[in-house]
């Protein structure tokens, strides 16, 4: 396998169109709930059912989130854009057209940097970003020999994000999508949940002999429903095109469907049968004119984005880049980490605790960070002050995670507080030395490594409560007396 720019002597060229569901409470053009998973056809009204006489009214919050997405992707946001109708017949498209944007989209000319597996950090161009409504869902497996239609999704707000032909391998396409998902989740624009279909990808794929050649004839690959399938589907289509060309057969412009069960790409329709969507400006909606203050408001609402946060963590907290990457992977974890530091914990131990105990616990409990940041900071302080051993602190962490409570109180209740009192330590040391006369004699004869044995015995006698840092000193003192 060679690098991205060259696969069996061919360069792969991929552009992506991603549909992302905006995190709004209601639909794009009516007040119905946009919730996922409700019983079929319960979140519907004359507007999203496409009943005669009904008219669309744009959802302000959806437009605001779209503006926010455009700003996060460094786009030029156009103060005036036009809704357009995309006309086609399908049973789950109740109006016979989708309200989208065509000639004058909300935003153009943006970019998103991502880490290419082959080329390092590269920037993908965002050609356009526009707002539109989703169609309903056709259910082919609900009734025998019949298709059922659920219109709960009809009218749910989407943005479509279109890149240039900027990816040179399926791996790059996947890396871009992960970065995009990360960004949109971060900025509170979308939950990007593939299970719910809130992020969907179509890809344009072509190959050519060298980067100096004109672009090859492209095909569109649809139905890529998971990140795991992105590389597979695009790799299959790339290999199919190379095989065709190497066999002397030209590529025909076509739409291909990815079948994840068979792990194959299938021909869906050729160019002659492609839809003519007959786009025209939506006469039911005046031009979308953004209030002058919206872009600034949305820029202000935009949180620190992942790349910037990662660099800040390195600079501000002196963390290794790898740690910063893990801690900033989701906004929730990053905010949690900073909460722990702000509550007084040192940055590096805080990073170790969050990446270790906290993320492990979260993984088993639906991504919940169960120990409050302040409690974790207190636990770290107890370790630092010698009150708890690291091992004991892990027990306390688990207890607080499961049942809550103040770490010190929990540690006391569990009897895990380390004893630093000289009198108590001396008593345990005396017990141990009295019980091991033979070992004492061997030690005194010069067998110095037996100190570790005595320390162990003392810890045992104290049931782990003796501070292991103080015990050797007391032992030395007694044994040399």
């Amino acid at each position: 396998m060679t690098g991205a720019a060259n696969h069996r002597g061919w360069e792969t060229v991929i552009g992506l169109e991603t549909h992302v569901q905006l995190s709004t409470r209601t639909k794009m053009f009516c007040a119905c709930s946009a919730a996922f998973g409700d019983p079929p056809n319960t979140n519907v009204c004359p507007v999203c059912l496409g009943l005669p006489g009904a008219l669309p009214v744009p959802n302000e919050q959806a437009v605001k989130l779209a503006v926010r997405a455009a700003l996060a992707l460094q786009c030029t946001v156009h103060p005036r854009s036009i809704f357009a109708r995309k006309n086609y017949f399908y049973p789950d498209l109740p109006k016979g057209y989708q309200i989208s944007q065509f000639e004058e989209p909300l935003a153009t000319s943006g970019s998103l940097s991502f880490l290419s597996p082959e080329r390092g950090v590269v920037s993908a161009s965002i050609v356009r970003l526009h707002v539109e409504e989703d169609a309903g869902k056709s259910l082919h497996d609900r009734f025998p020999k019949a298709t059922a239609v659920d219109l709960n999704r009809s009218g749910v707000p989407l943005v479509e994000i279109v890149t240039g032909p900027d990816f040179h391998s399926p791996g790059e396409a996947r890396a871009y999508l992960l970065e995009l998902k990360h960004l949109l989740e971060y900025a509170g624009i979308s939950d990007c949940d593939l299970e719910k279909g809130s992020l969907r990808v179509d890809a344009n794929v072509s190959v050519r002999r060298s980067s100096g050649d004109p672009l090859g004839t492209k095909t569109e690959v649809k139905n890529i429903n998971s990140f795991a399938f992105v590389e597979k589907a695009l790799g299959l289509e790339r290999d199919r095109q190379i095989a065709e060309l190497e066999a002397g057969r030209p590529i025909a412009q076509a739409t291909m469907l990815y079948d994840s069960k068979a792990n194959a790409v299938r021909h869906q329709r050729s160019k002659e049968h492609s839809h003519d969507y007959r786009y025209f400006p939506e006469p039911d909606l005046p031009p979308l004119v953004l209030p002058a203050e919206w872009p600034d408001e949305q820029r202000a609402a935009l949180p620190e984005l992942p790349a910037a946060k990662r660099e800040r963590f390195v600079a501000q907290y002196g963390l290794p880049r790898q740690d910063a990457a893990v801690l900033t992977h989701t906004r929730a974890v990053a905010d949690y980490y900073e909460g722990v530091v702000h509550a007084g914990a040192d940055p590096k131990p805080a990073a170790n605790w969050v990446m270790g105990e906290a993320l492990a616990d979260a993984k088993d409990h639906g991504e919940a960070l169960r120990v409050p940041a302040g409690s974790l900071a207190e636990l770290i302080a107890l370790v630092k002050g010698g009150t708890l051993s690291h091992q004991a602190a892990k027990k306390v962490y688990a207890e607080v995670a499961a049942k809550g409570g103040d770490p010190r109180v929990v540690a006391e209740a569990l009897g895990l507080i380390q004893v630093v009192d000289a009198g108590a330590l001396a008593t345990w040391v005396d017990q141990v030395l009295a019980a091991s006369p033979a070992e004492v004699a061997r030690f005194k004869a010069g067998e110095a490594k037996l100190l570790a044995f005595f320390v162990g015995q003392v810890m045992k006698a104290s049931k782990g409560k003796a501070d292991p840092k103080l015990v050797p000193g007391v032992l030395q003192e007694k044994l040399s007396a």
Partner: protein
Amino acid sequence: MSDAVASARATAERISKLRRLNAVLTKQTELRKALLAQAAAARPTGVLYGMPVAVKANICTLEFETSCGSHILEGYRSPYDATAIARLKAAGALIAGATNCDEFAMGSSTEHSAFGRTLHPLDKTRVPGGSSGGSAALVAAGAVPAALGSETGGSVRQPAAFCGVVGIKPTYGRVSRYGLVAFGSSLDQIGVFGRSVHDAARVLSVISGRDLRDNTCEDRDPLRLPTVPENLDGFVIGIPREYFPPDLDPGVRRACERAIRILRELGAAVREVSLPHTPYAVPTYYIIAPAEASSNLARYDGVRYGPRAEGSLADVRALYRETRGSGFGAEVRRRILIGTYVLSSGYYDAYYRKAQQVRALIAQDFRNVFDRGVDLLFTPTTPTPAFKAGAKLADPVQMYLSDIFVCTANLAGLPALSLPIGRVKGLPIGGQLIGPHFLEDEMLEAAYALERAVPAAEEA
């Protein structure tokens, strides 16, 4: 018995006596029942308390089928009232049945209804005009004082002129389109028929005003009715020469000339003006309206409501083909085909985009005239009186040309009205007033004055 109940009974009685006109699609028993139920619920304090208002079958009501004069919506009942209907009800009016119309408002004679043509109330061999012919005929026959129609290209004013009643098309954006079944969305407006200017204006005032459900409806208060003026001193009325072509029906010309004399006598300054792009209005209209219609009518596919062609479930494309092929009439199919064609890639620029540019020029013609001190335009509403049934069915272009003087106001979004100005061989002739955007009040003032002075029932 309350006034409203008495009105409901009398209305049902009058309409039942006019069944031969085929102006109302609602069955007699159903209509009577619905009228009585509404009368019982009507608010006595409403400004239209007890007033029966018939409604074109393309405006959604809870009471009646919204069939749009089409088999494809036969039996369809809307689960909601159009905004205009809700406002009429809130004002105490009684919705008096769904009236016949050309299928999906596409036509100029009400002959394209799937439920048979409506007869002209004065001459059963003639058409009442269209597409809102049922509403016009019902008002003309005295069954109701007012009725709602809809306009995309003159479908209220043209039948008003043919039937000898008043028809108002408000400014685009004056009345909410929510619940008006879409034909050409950028042109569509609900309009009002009345026995008199005042009856029509009262209803218009009630249904007008902002509606958050329609983004194309202007954020304005309801229309305030003007008082009837003593005279028209200070009014400048333009007479566009393009509306008086050499082949204009001589009777129509005589009636208009008489009306213009009366306008002068009332004190108005009358001035000849030019709207040079008028000859392009009908071709422009017949690109834009069908284009929008081809998209607006895509939803009638037999999937969710309306009749579905039997035996076509195996293949969804066959279901569409058979349902739409049998559900739509010939004129609707013709316009869907034209509209699909002009929006197709490769033709969009030559047709749809070009038509939008010409539309802007037509609107500019009006602005130029209004900017130069003209308050209102006066024109004939139609080139001829009501024509014979069947006379134009074989030649769609001749049918389209009957809207030559009315479709310009729709393209420009302007308010316009037609009022009776005389008769020719017993048939009514309509005169048209066109005003600047949202200046319905001035247009109504002039209409009040002209209505009072013109001998509308006399031969011109």
